[in-house]
């Protein structure tokens, strides 16, 4: 025991040096509940970390506080990274916080990554499964809270861009334990009753816990199973939820979802105008083409010199007539030769020619021709035909 008497400042400095010299305390994680959380106009955050046994004063300067990903509040569980030092004026040690994250987010983040990997492996994010969006949706189902900014943003943007679409809100809670089941049931209901040709589901920005319903496996599967195409619209640009991966189209924000869902009225009107102009000019061109062809036709010989046209045709006709005549003559000669040949063949076969050579034909009384000697009966009368006439004879014997 030393009998040196310190001033308060000296002792405090001694303690401060002692603590500052501990490497373990220069980069330390502390888990605890935030309490008495205050943001000063300077931008510095002052609060206490506590648990059942102790409290620890903490400060987070403006520069570090500006990098926070969430809004810390008293009562929240958090993990702080910082260094322990002494603040001599208050005679108190405190934690100078460089990073602060909500406690449990580590677990959430892990669950998120695990679910993402599982669903990716199952093919829920496959682009082959993504459904095309209708070009001109007539009815758009909006599955979100009826109270948030999201629904107002979607209605404002969609009805300004494309007032032809009917917007159908299916109000659900978008945060809290009931939210996933409500979102799932609204998506299924919209499908079952075909209330729309497109679904937008989402919510405005918030902490990772606020957006958590859209990282729920049931919600992801309901979106995947939806027959109606789904646009997800969760939070702000950097927030990417599981719903975003599985949706047919991911919008960065609810307003963006409305932009993606409907065409722009002005653009469509201009498109119509330009099409009308193009049709008119195409028809004009077409008419000019026809007029040009007509002019070309008029210039042809048949129209300019019809006499020449007929002269040509007359020559062709004469030529054809001559061809026809000679073809007829050739055919006639051929037929005549064939007839002569047949007539002489016929002549050679004539019975008169046989009789002329001295033969006779014997005819019985019943008019039949006697062909064999055996057919003749003695006493029978026969008629003999000779070349120049007939004689009647009687059979006397064999």
């Amino acid at each position: 025991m030393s009998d040196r008497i310190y001033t308060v400042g000296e002792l405090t400095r001694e303690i401060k040096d002692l603590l500052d010299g501990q490497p373990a305390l220069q980069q330390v994680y502390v888990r605890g509940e935030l309490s008495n959380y205050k943001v000063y106009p300077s931008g510095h955050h002052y609060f206490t970390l506590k648990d059942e046994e102790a409290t620890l004063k903490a400060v987070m300067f403006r520069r570090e506080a500006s990098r926070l990903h969430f809004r810390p509040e008293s009562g929240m569980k958090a993990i702080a990274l910082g260094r322990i030092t002494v603040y001599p004026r208050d005679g108190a040690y405190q934690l100078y916080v460089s990073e602060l994250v909500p406690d449990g987010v580590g677990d959430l983040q892990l669950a998120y990554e695990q679910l993402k990997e599982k669903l990716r492996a199952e093919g829920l994010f496959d682009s082959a499964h993504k459904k095309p969006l209708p070009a001109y949706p007539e009815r758009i189902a909006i599955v979100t809270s009826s109270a948030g900014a999201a629904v107002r943003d979607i209605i404002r943007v969609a009805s300004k861009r494309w007032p032809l679409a009917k917007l159908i809100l299916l109000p659900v809670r978008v945060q809290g334990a009931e939210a996933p089941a409500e979102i799932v049931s609204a998506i299924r209901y919209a499908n079952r009753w075909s209330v729309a040709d497109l679904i937008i589901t989402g919510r405005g920005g918030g902490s990772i816990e606020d957006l958590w319903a859209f990282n729920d496996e049931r919600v992801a599967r309901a979106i995947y199973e939806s027959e109606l195409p789904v646009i997800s619209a969760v939070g702000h640009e950097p927030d990417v939820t599981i719903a975003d991966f599985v949706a047919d189209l991911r919008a960065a924000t609810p307003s963006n979802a409305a932009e993606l869902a409907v065409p722009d009225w002005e653009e469509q009107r201009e498109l119509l105008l330009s099409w009308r102009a193009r049709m008119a000019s195409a028809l004009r061109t077409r008419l000019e083409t026809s007029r040009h062809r007509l002019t070309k036709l008029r210039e042809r010989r048949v129209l300019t010199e019809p006499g020449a046209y007929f002269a040509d045709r007359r020559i062709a006709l004469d030529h054809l007539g001559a061809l026809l005549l000679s073809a007829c003559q050739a055919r006639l000669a051929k037929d005549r030769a064939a007839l002569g040949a047949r007539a002489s063949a016929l002549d050679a076969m004539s019975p008169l020619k046989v009789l002329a050579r001295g033969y006779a034909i014997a005819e019985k009384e019943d008019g039949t021709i006697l062909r064999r000697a055996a057919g003749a009966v003695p006493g029978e009368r026969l008629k003999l035909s000779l070349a120049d006439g007939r004689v009647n004879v009687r059979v006397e014997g064999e």
Partner: protein
Amino acid sequence: MTVAEKKAGFEQSMARLEEIVKLLERGDAPLEDAMKLFEEGTKLAEACDALLNEAEKKVVALSKGPDGAPVERDFDDGE
């Protein structure tokens, strides 16, 4: 034609109109066909234009009716 039918026709009308523009611009249709296409296209464009001008903002909230079927009521988004 009911409003629903007309709206259902908007997409088809726009598609047909685009097709007509392309056919006319190709310029190989007989003149008579081209005239008919132009007439059809002009009618479609007028119908689409009329639909665009009929537009009226309509927002409803849906709830499940006693038989489960959806029941619509007007939704006031505060605008």
